[in-house]
């Protein structure tokens, strides 16, 4: 089961829920377990919240998802100000974005901030899928959805 899609959304608060709805439906269709979907949607919500909060003056942000039998990788990107949480110490997180990063790190196996040198801010979230619960084929076969 391989699935890839991207969606570009206006940098507005309401679109974070739109992203969850779209991504959640795609992940469930791809056969991911409820626990995985919950963690991925919560982490993605935090990353998109950061994009909305810190992405000025970019008018929009992009969510790219790639899912195969081993992992789910999300990239949340915008062309606004650089925002890197890589150096934020976990015990001293007070800022709102810091709380979000703490949640992302708890929920996903890998959280990385990249792309600053190219003028982008990209948060890369990686979730390993349960080895004992491989994704089922779902209702479709290898759907590829691209909405840009």
């Amino acid at each position: 089961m391989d699935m890839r899609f991207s969606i570009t959304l206006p940098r507005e608060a309401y679109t974070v829920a739109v992203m969850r709805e779209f991504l959640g439906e795609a992940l469930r269709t791809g056969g991911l377990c409820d626990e995985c979907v919950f963690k991925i949607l919560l982490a993605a919500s935090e990353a998109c919240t950061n994009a909305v909060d810190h992405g000025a003056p970019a008018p929009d942000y992009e969510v790219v998802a790639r899912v195969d039998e081993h992992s789910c990788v999300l990239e949340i990107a915008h062309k606004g100000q650089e925002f890197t949480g890589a150096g934020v110490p976990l015990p001293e997180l007070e800022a709102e974005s810091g709380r979000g990063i703490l949640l992302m790190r708890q929920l996903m196996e890998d959280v990385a901030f990249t792309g600053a040198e190219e003028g982008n801010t990209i948060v890369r979230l990686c979730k390993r899928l349960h080895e004992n619960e491989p994704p089922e084929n779902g209702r479709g076969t290898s759907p590829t959805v691209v909405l840009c």
Partner: protein
Amino acid sequence: MSGRDGERFRCGEAVVVPVHGEIDIATADDMRDRLLGEAARTDCACMVVDLSRVEFFDASGRRALMAAYQRLTRDGRHMVLAEPAPAVSRVIDVLGLSGSFEVYPLVEMALAHTRASARQAGAPGAAEHRTGRFPGME
């Protein structure tokens, strides 16, 4: 921070405010304003935030609850959380909210706490149980 080991305010009257739907960047401030509005409208000594019908909750929700808590505390009022839905419990656990808030597994347990506090303070016994509805995203 207030905790279970210290009772700083008499809590004779309680208002129960249910929170519904998805709490995120788009709705968290509305939830905070709703809680503060209910506190002002009812002039309650204690607010029980019923989180049993929350379907999504992230760090924005945590920030909004903390803002309401700090404001009510400053006004000499008490705020506790009750019956967190699974989506809320997970975030509470990760962010350590239970170290900041009193969290009760059931609304009735939160109300029993307020009644006990009222008796200890010599106030009229029964907690006043009102409800307000949060117009969340449903």
